């Protein structure tokens, strides 16, 4: 971004600049006043700056044309590609904006200017806006959203700590109650409180008891194992007895069957079974395998089958006898096995008893379980009372262990909660204090910025409306709604929202001051301030103060461009009423046309130009006459108005010499005198007086002899003879220099009551009244 002084702005095919227009900036002048009637190109110039600075043309916005306004950026009849806007700086560097396709590009990007642009239609926008819109404009100066995020995190830390404290407190008290209940169950004493008790309870060694608990578990298990035997022994003895009975029965049945069959029946059955198996393997033998007779071989298998059937009863009895014999063997071995198991159980009991050093509380039967388990039942009867005692003690120990665990858990929780509570109690006040500091610092910070802005607004406003600005304007961030700004002004002693009570011109001025105060906050020396025709509603007495105020602040910006269609500005400059020591460049735009675009008029004050023409070595008489004519008209216009001389009534003020000169009649003419007042080194007033009659008489004489009375002032150059031209110019120069002070203007104030004087009292015009 360049901060170089400006040299020129060239606009080609851009908006109203349909051909190419260059606005040159005068060296050393940081303020440029652009005067032009409606439609002369003022806004186009401002648009050119905005185009370069922002890649946008705001003058087209909000005019009901919707989006896609880029198509109106080039001049009618030209193409986007024709557009070229170039800002050149005094060091020769520049920045040019063009269209590359539909998008603007800037070359070089880093030379794009920074601007603050206020347009007529926006002037009161900030004042009349809703508070949140106003905030948007001010936000960049108070944009602390990120800090507010951090502040929010601190608030969160504070709130978390506070709820941590609450939860730790409630956990602490609920665990205390818990312990107190356990204490109650364990037998509370008045001497010590629940916590001391719990600590002692948890601290006592638990190893002894847990070893006994394990040993008791084993003992009770082993005793329980023994208890199962009597029933098992009885059951298995019973089974053996049943098997033996069955065996005896089947033996008897077999004997009976054998007796009724042949003596060799049993062996025969065995033999037939073997034969059957053989015939199954070798069906249809040719001879009997036993006797080798071929005659009995046929149907042998059938014969064997029939014989076996006859001997079946023997076979069945044999099988049942075998089965019952096996059952007896099985029952016998089951009893043997039980005996072995019993021996193991006795061993378990002996181990359970021997593996622990039992205290007095655990008693045992005098004898160990008998070797023969048939005697066990008796032993168990005697041991039952001991086993019962073991079980009870085991249960008691187990319960005590659980309680201890409960106390330990509750105490742990209680202590944790207490630590958390103490930590929170320690930190919470600091977090609260830090958050308070954050909030207060932020509020003070934004309030200070607001007060600074408001103070600046008031200071500027005061320059235009004395006694109405200082300390009477207030801007306030709404503390609840943060991104919302209230604007108040003191009106007749009350604080009011300005739009409710201010006149339009007061509102406009206030809007301008708010805009300027904001623009001034941010590196104004790097920015171009542009005010596009914003002073429409300011009237004559105030316009000079507004101009004064703008002059002053324009010194703080890189450059200031003020456009106006307001004629008094032009007159004030042209007639030396804008003080030249304030280094202002005046530009007048004129005669816009679609084919030619924007045009510019000469900008040097008229009297200075006439003086310059007269001083040239080879004077341009034509030019002298032309300029002198226009100035003379202005001077005579001033005098005839001041003394209310009668002149013909006209719609358009285009008088002839014959109409204005004779209007200053003899009595007035004789009395007219201008005193030019200056001060010497000691500050003493020096007065040079000049009678106007000789000047006016000679001017009349030239006009009459040359028969110019009917000529219009602006066409005198065609009618005057060269011989008279120089003299005419000199007379007009003398008259106008006497009447107008370049610095303080025309003597039009009747302040002293005896003559007219100008603002700086450098000119005094006599008489005050037209002589009758």
């Amino acid at each position, binding site marked *: 971004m360049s901060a170089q002084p400006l040299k020129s702005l060239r606009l080609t095919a851009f908006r109203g600049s349909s051909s190419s227009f260059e606005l040159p900036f005068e060296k050393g002048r940081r303020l440029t006043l652009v005067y032009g009637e409606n439609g002369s190109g003022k806004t186009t110039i401002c648009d050119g700056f905005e185009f370069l600075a922002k890649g946008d043309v705001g003058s087209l916005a909000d005019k009901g044309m919707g989006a896609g306004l880029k198509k109106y950026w080039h001049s009618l009849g030209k193409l986007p590609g024709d557009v070229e806007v170039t800002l050149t700086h005094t060091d020769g560097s520049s920045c040019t904006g063009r269209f590359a396709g539909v998008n603007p590009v800037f070359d070089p990007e880093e030379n794009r200017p920074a601007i603050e642009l206020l347009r007529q239609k926006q002037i009161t926008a900030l004042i009349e806006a809703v508070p949140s819109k106003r905030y948007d404009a001010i936000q960049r100066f108070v944009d602390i959203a990120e800090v507010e995020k*951090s502040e929010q995190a601190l608030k969160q830390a504070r709130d978390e700590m506070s709820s941590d404290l609450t939860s730790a407190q409630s956990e602490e008290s609920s665990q205390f109650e818990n312990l107190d209940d356990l204490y109650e169950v364990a037998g509370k004493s008045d001497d010590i409180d629940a916590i001391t008790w719990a600590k002692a309870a948890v601290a006592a060694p638990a190893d002894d008891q847990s070893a006994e608990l394990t040993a008791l578990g084993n003992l009770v298990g082993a005793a329980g194992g023994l208890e199962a035997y009597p029933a098992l022994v009885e059951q298995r003895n019973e089974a053996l007895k049943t098997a033996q009975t069955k065996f005896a029965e089947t033996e008897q049945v077999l004997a009976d069957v054998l007796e009724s069959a042949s003596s060799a029946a049993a062996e025969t059955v065995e033999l037939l079974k073997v034969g059957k198996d053989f015939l199954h393997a070798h069906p249809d033998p040719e001879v009997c395998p036993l006797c080798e007779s071929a005659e009995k071989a046929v149907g042998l298998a059938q014969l064997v089958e029939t014989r076996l059937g006859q001997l079946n009863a023997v076979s069945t009895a044999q099988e049942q006898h075998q089965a019952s014999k096996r059952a007896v063997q099985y029952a016998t071995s089951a009893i043997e096995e039980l005996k072995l198991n019993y021996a193991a159980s006795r061993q378990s009991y002996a181990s359970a008893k021997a593996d622990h050093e039992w205290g007095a509380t655990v008693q045992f039967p005098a004898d160990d379980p008998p070797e023969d388990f048939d005697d066990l039942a008796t032993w168990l009867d005697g041991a039952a009372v001991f086993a019962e005692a073991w079980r009870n003690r085991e249960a008691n120990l187990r319960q005590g262990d659980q309680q201890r665990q409960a106390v330990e858990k509750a105490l742990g929780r209680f202590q944790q909660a207490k630590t958390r509570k103490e930590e929170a109690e320690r930190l919470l006040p600091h977090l609260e204090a830090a958050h308070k*500091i954050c909030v207060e610092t932020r509020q003070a910070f934004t309030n200070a910025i607001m007060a600074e802005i408001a103070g600046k607004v008031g200071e500027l406003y005061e320059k235009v409306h004395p006694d109405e600005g200082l300390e009477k304007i207030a801007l306030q961030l709404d503390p609840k709604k943060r991104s919302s700004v209230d604007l108040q002004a003191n009106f007749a002693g009350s604080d009011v929202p300005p739009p409710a009570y201010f006149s339009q011109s007061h509102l406009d001025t206030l809007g301008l001051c708010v805009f300027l105060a904001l623009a001034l906050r941010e590196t104004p020396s790097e920015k171009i301030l542009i005010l596009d025709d914003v002073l429409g509603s300011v009237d004559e007495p105030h316009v000079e103060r507004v101009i004064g105020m703008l002059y002053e602040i324009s010194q703080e910006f890189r450059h200031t461009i003020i456009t106006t269609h307001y004629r008094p500005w032009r007159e004030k400059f042209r007639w030396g009423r804008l003080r030249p020591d304030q280094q202002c460049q005046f530009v007048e735009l004129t005669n816009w046309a679609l084919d030619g675009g924007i045009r510019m008029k000469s900008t040097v004050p008229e009297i200075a130009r006439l003086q310059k023409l007269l001083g040239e070595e080879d004077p341009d008489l034509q030019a002298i006459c032309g300029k002198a004519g226009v100035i003379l008209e202005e001077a005579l216009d001033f005098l005839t108005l001041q003394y209310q001389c009668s002149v013909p009534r006209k719609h358009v003020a285009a008088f002839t010499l014959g109409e204005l000169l004779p209007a200053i009649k003899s009595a007035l003419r004789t009395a007219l005198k201008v005193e030019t007042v200056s001060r010497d080194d000691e500050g003493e007033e020096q007065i040079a007086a000049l009678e106007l009659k000789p000047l006016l008489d000679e001017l009349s004489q030239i006009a009459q002899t040359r028969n110019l009375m009917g000529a219009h002032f602006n066409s005198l150059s065609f009618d005057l003879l060269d011989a008279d031209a120089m003299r005419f110019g000199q007379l007009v120069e003398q008259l106008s220099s006497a009447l107008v002070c370049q610095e303080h203007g025309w003597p039009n104030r009747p302040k002293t009551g005896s003559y007219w004087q100008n603002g700086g009292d450098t000119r005094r015009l006599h008489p005050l009244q037209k002589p009758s």
Partner: protein
Amino acid sequence: MSEDLSPAAALATKIGSAIAKAGMMRDERKADLVAKIASGEMSAADWKTEIDLAVEKAEQA
């Protein structure tokens, strides 16, 4: 207001100084933390830790 400091940075500096002065931020951590405050990166945990440590340091001194 200094022209090269953003409003957020200027405010964060003020907040940092005020909190450090009240003994709730350690001087040696101030520069880092002010930058964090300005950029909105300060978390609840960051605040807790710093205030805890700063207070502890102040209590020991």
